């Protein structure tokens, strides 16, 4: 029997449909893989019993001729999605032991479509980070190694999800992306990561980081897998006022492989100073692949790009500082209090003990930029720039169907690197943040290897609610790049 963990989501779906194997068998294979790779620390909570229960139920459902879009397919769920009766931590100490009485809309949709949950994937605390080193439950190790063989970060914040998929510990995983948290780890781990348009997937039941930016999306082995999974996650939700009341198309049908006559934009502002040669080359290769496939490549300008990172690091912390106010030790999660303490003492002790350094830093930045006397200089100005950034894209999309850029300025770096320099760490998001601020769909597709033998991804950005074009072009890029490299031990 072939190694069931090496299948793509689409292959596994088709194999299940043909009766080649059962969901129980698929699930068992992945649980075994999770055992074998526990050293990567990709999961905060493994749910083998629940997984087997769901797999059995799924097989029974299929036997009755009733199969959903993701029927029987075992996946990892980023531990930012609230899952009923299963500990949900957001990788924070402050939520340790918290078991929601409700299921997030996205996981509910996935489970309704037959998906099986293997466990809750590790992440940066409250999804704040680009390295997955800020998790209270320990950092995640990238399954890929550079030539020196040292441990590398998987990227973040959806680092556990990315590592789980790359190491075949799940057929696919849910991620969330606020400034690049799906795309950047996908690039670092050599997988596909799709951040849908803001409003495509419901945010209900996802622990909030920055409400105007957070968006759930699929992290998968292939572009086709991303199309399948997005279709099972997305949809309007009356419980989320920012969820878009529009129909979910058949994303898989968009994968025609034909991009002839399409216009692809290349924004000159993304060619930043000091861009590593290999990233520059990767990008050029990508341009050549799309041109060879019949697309017309057009230079576009996104003049406010240089302000995007600064804008993001005002807007996101501002919203976070308010969103995280509810973790006060009162109703759930950790409470730290000594006898005779006042309410304020309890707040301070619980939050000081419950939140890690990076989360505290962002709460402080956010509080500062919203405070009286600074609001106009920071937050209000950031909103104005954000509008300009959106208008930049609007202008560009007047000329082109999609925009091609690198996903990240580098390959995965060593654990511990950049730790002392938050601004350098924030630079990892430089190419992903603009699309987040504009609410646009973006996909990272692995297209090459660095000199150190590490995966590198290219990003395609699309028009609002045009994930279909992003997927179609992404599919062409994927075929042309023919990226078959795997981390050591996962070769096919």
């Amino acid at each position, binding site marked *: 029997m072939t190694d069931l963990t090496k299948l793509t989501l689409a292959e596994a779906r088709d194999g299940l449909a043909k009766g080649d194997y059962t969901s129980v068998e698929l699930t068992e294979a992945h649980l075994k893989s999770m055992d074998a790779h526990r050293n990567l620390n990709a999961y905060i909570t493994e749910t083998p019993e629940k997984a087997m229960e769901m797999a059995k139920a799924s097989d029974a459902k299929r036997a009755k001729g009733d199969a959903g879009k993701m029927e029987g397919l075992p996946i990892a769920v980023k531990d930012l999605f609230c899952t009923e009766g299963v500990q949900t931590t957001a990788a924070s100490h402050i939520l340790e032991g918290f078991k929601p009485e*409700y299921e997030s809309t996205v996981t509910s949709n996935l489970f309704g479509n037959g998906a099986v949950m293997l466990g809750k994937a590790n992440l940066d605390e409250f999804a704040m980070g680009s390295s997955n080193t800020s998790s209270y439950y320990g950092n995640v190790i990238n399954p890929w190694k550079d030539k020196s063989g040292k441990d590398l970060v998987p990227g973040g914040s959806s680092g556990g999800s990315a590592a789980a998929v790359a190491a075949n510990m799940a057929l696919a995983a849910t991620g969330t992306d606020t400034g690049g948290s799906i795309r950047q780890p996908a690039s670092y781990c050599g997988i596909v990561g799709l951040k849908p348009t803001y409003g495509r997937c419901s945010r209900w039941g*996802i622990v909030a980081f920055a409400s105007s930016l957070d968006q759930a999306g699929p992290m998968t082995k292939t572009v086709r897998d991303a199309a399948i999974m997005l279709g099972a996650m997305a949809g309007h939700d009356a*419980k989320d*006022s920012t969820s878009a009341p529009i129909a979910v198309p058949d994303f898989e049908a968009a994968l025609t492989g034909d991009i002839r006559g399409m216009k692809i934009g290349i924004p000159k502002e993304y060619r930043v100073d000091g861009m590593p040669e290999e990233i520059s080359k990767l990008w050029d290769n990508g341009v050549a692949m799309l041109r060879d496939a019949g697309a017309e490549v057009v230079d576009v300008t996104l003049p406010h790009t240089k302000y995007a990172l600064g804008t993001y690091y005002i807007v996101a912390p501002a919203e976070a*500082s308010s969103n995280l106010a509810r973790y*006060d030790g009162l*109703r759930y999660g950790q409470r730290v209090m000594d006898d005779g303490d006042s309410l304020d003492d309890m707040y301070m002790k619980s939050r000081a003990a419950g939140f890690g350094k990076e989360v505290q830093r962002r709460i402080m930045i956010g509080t500062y930029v*919203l405070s009286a006397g600074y609001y106009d200089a920071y937050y209000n100005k950031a909103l104005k720039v954000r509008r300009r950034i959106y208008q930049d894209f609007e202008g560009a999309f007047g000329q082109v169907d999609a925009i091609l850029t690198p996903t990240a300025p580098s390959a995965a770096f060593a654990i511990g690197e950049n730790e002392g320099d938050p601004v350098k760490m924030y630079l990892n998001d430089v190419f992903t943040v603009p699309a987040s601020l504009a609410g646009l769909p973006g996909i990272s597709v692995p297209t090459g290897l660095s000199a150190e033998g590490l995966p590198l991804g290219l990003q395609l950005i699309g028009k609002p609610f045009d994930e279909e074009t992003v997927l179609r072009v992404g599919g062409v890029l994927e075929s042309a790049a023919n990226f078959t490299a795997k981390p050591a031990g996962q070769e096919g």
Partner: protein
Amino acid sequence: MSYILEGSTGPWEIVVGLEVHCQVISKSKLFSGASTKFGNEPNSNVSLVDAAMPGMLPVVNAECVRQAVKTGLGLKAKINKESVFARKNYFYADLPQGYQISQFDKPIVGEGTIILDMPDGSTKSVGIERLHLEQDAGKSMHDQDPKYSHIDLNRSGVALMEIVSMPDIRSPEEAGAYLTKLRAIVRYLGTCDGNMNEGSMRCDANVSVRRPGEGFGTRCEIKNVNSIRFVMQAIEIEAKRQIEVIEGGGEIQQETRLYDQRLGETRSMRSKEMAHDYRYFPDPDLLPLVFDDAFISEIEKELPELPDEKKARFMRENGLSAYDAGVLVAEKEKADYYEVVAKGRDGKLAANWVITNLFGALNKAEVGIADSPVTAENLGKLIDLISDDTISGRIAKDVFEIMIETGGDPEKIVEEKGLKQITDTGAIETAIDEVIAANPDKVEEIRAGKDKMLGWFVGQVMKSTGGKANPGMVNKLLRDKILG
């Protein structure tokens, strides 16, 4: 008449602006489906959103929006077709989200006006600056445990309308009239029950003093006063305190103060330096609240006749004075009662009976109009009995007394007690003859020109008939017999 406080150094004028929180009448909360029912077990009306569980999102309740627009229309205010919910950030145990969802620079309702009906029958108009929608907080209970405070989240997330006046109020009486009128308007509209003692209407007062004609002074805010009477007292006491400070060479510090009705003083709660920095910003979980003209005109169609219009109609159609009309429309139930009594009858007579007799009796018994023992139908019948000469006005007062006591039907009371007016000429003549026969000297006096004595005879005849004789007939027959 302007209200002036005399200080030791001269006259002072007071300037007051009121911020009133009105709890919106709605089945469910502003951003969740939980019930708003008052008086349920603590923490029984709490949804996941109200408890601020991780990942929960607010969804605005359209009914609350309609109520706010309706109130705005009732205040003759500008309705903003686009408004924005903003977060007001602060930590407190009864605020689970760590922020209150409110409206900041883009409220749902803009400027409007309230016409005050002053006790002397005059009116004054006070500007409304804005009305915005916001969530209520939960309730902290400090008396349940010696060591810990308990929190009840039933109220957490219930919709409030904060209605902010312009600083147009110049006396405690005007503040009282403002609150009375605002309460009447929201009650007429059915958008808030206006019960200050249950906390469904709460008032903060911004008070400052100045020399007449000068610019505004520094204001202090008196928080959460829970009755109209206390608001009036607090304003006067606070104004006097400020005058004393200024005249003593001190300066007023902008601050938040509490009114202690027991001690009759205001006390500093927190200074400007200690004031919260609320870090308002647009709530990213909610889209701007946008609606069209059709939405507004739909609500406009449902507007009931409001106190000002009703007052004008009573004056126009029933010939009532501004004062009487104002008294009647102050509460919708009173106006409704009056309209039943006045229907098909003399409007002024009806107003007299309702205001002087009924309200007088209800006040004395400390009973509200809703619990009046005399129904509007019965009071109407009583007036009919006077109008068709079945009883006299004086007997009517006796019958009314019985109605207040027993709640009885005036026709039956008159029947049972035999109070029908005597209109039988023979019977009255007999009574007159008896009085004349007993007082020949007084008869002579009248004939000698002392007309006034005729009144004495009327009185005697009325007395001998137990008040039942028709006074007009008695008068006429007496004249005929004595002067004839």
